[in-house]
């Protein structure tokens, strides 16, 4: 069975002669979380707006496949948490949320029931009849999230969902996002915290200057450079570490060292060659974190452009 929920085909968008989005293509499937990453000004928000039908692309097309239907985007079946938060600040939480669910085609009674269930999930029931502006930033954030999901969309676009949330609520939100994924929602997640992306996403798309930099599963992207990162806590002298097989760079701070093993270097050979004079307290060998891959990919692009 084809689980593709969203298909974006070579979309292009110009603003006053500047190309904001330059022919990107991607697909998102039901039951997956696709990370949509890029530095500020890369064309992320414009792409998202095109995907959600807020902007028309100059070229290319966006199609959505839901319940056997293929065709132009159905706005009722998408949910959106915009980066720029905004709700009717002088309306009550319940009224605003019911209205947004109604705009997605729900009947009022139905909308109300679902909104109340979500408010319960986020411990916001006592706030249901308070005005949105009376809520703390974190609470408003949760309300905004409910506006994106109350109508149970098939495609959910989350732009920076974790900003402004404390760690407790970040975890709560992560759980909810995973649940939605398991229930068959296709999730497009844009975030700047790469550790969150690594935790949640199955695949990622990196955009820079309106173009695709890389697109694939986390494993594919991490093994692309064939590098490893070693983190070490030790007693003794770190001098000999730089000469070990495969080591490309070494940084020592106190009793901690972090090393990068170059392309094709074997973690096994490295560990076996650790000198006996060194007492290892902690040791980890991992693929480079997404954060480093992101930074280096963008730096490389910028360097090539210059």
């Amino acid at each position, binding site marked *: 069975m084809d689980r593709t929920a969203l298909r974006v085909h070579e979309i292009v*968008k110009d*603003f006053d002669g500047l190309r904001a989005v330059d022919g990107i293509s991607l697909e998102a499937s039901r039951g997956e979380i696709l990370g949509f990453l890029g530095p500020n000004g890369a064309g992320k928000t414009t792409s998202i*707006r095109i995907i*959600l*039908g*807020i*902007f*028309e692309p100059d070229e290319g097309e966006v199609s959505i496949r839901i319940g056997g239907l293929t065709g132009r985007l159905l*706005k*009722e079946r*998408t949910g*959106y948490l*915009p980066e*720029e*938060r*905004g*709700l*009717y*600040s*002088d*309306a009550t939480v319940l009224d605003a949320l019911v*209205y*947004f669910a*109604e*705009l*997605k*085609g729900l009947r009022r009674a139905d909308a109300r029931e679902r909104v109340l269930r979500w408010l319960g999930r986020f411990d916001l029931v006592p706030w249901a009849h308070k005005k949105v502006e009376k809520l703390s930033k974190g609470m408003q954030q949760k309300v905004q999230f409910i*506006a994106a999901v109350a109508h149970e969309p098939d495609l959910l676009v989350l732009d920076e969902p974790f900003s402004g949330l404390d760690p407790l609520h970040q975890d709560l939100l992560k759980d909810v996002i995973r649940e939605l994924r398991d229930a068959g929602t296709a999730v497009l997640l844009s975030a700047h915290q790469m550790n969150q992306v690594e935790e949640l996403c199955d695949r990622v798309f990196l955009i820079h200057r309106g173009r695709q930099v890389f697109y694939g599963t986390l494993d594919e992207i991490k093994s692309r450079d064939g590098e490893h990162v070693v983190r070490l806590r030790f007693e003794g002298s770190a001098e000999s570490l730089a000469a070990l097989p495969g080591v490309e760079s070494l940084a020592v701070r106190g009793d901690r060292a972090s090393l990068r093993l170059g392309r094709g270097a074997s973690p096994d050979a490295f560990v076996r060659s650790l000198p006996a004079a060194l007492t290892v307290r902690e040791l980890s060998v991992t693929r480079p974190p997404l954060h480093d891959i992101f930074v280096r990919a963008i730096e490389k692009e910028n360097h090539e452009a210059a």
Partner: protein
Amino acid sequence: MRLRSVIRWEFLRTIQSKQFLIISLLIPAMVAIAIFAATSAGKGAQQSLHEPPPPSVVALILAMILFMGAFLSGVMTLYSVVKEKQGRVVELVLSSISAQEMMAGKVIGLGIAGLIQVAVWAAAAYFVASRFTPISLAALGPVHWITYPLYFVLGFMLIASIYAATGAVMKDVQSGGASGLVGLIPYVPIMFSAFIIENPNHVLVRIAGFIPPFTPSVMLLRVGVGAAATWEIALSLVSLTVGVLLTMRFAARIFEIGLLMYGKAPSVRELWKWGRMRHAR
């Protein structure tokens, strides 16, 4: 179905807002001014204060009330659009409905609120005025009862869509700019109302009756003094309807593009370009 939700939401939010209350309190004063101005303008045609005023005076009063109501709900529309822009609600709304639906919902929802407001106060004013002056609705014939509501509603929609588009290109409520003046065009004939009442068949007046932004006020007055021929009424309604549809389409384009722009206000030339664009950016 969704449009009905938008209309309902905009209407309820409006009548619960503080601005609406303030405007409600301002209206009786303005209705009084309208009646006073119209009665003095119509003095020439009138023998004495105790005689019933001619239909022209009633027409002028109604024209003024129409434009007051349209102006006030236009301004409320403008505020509401600017506020949603500043509150960054627009993006979420547009991920659910089209800009056209959003604008139509606002224009209709706030229009109903404005019309109700004006109707209530006009009725109250009429009640008071008819006790102390000879003003009477009996002066209105069937032709008035048929054409006035049409000119009213179409005139309302014309003005409200202009204001909605103006709001969409404004950064905040302080920066009106040149685009704010466009909303005043339909009011120009009101300044010449004395001339129109006295020369309802002047060639310029007759032509102005067919130019959509001027149609509602000019025709209200011409019909009021009984100078408009049936074919002129029919033609003016057709041209006004076409004008309203074109204005709404043009305004909807500007609305759509302006909504998500937060930079400097666009120039008149840019607006002209936007209005004719096939789709939004």
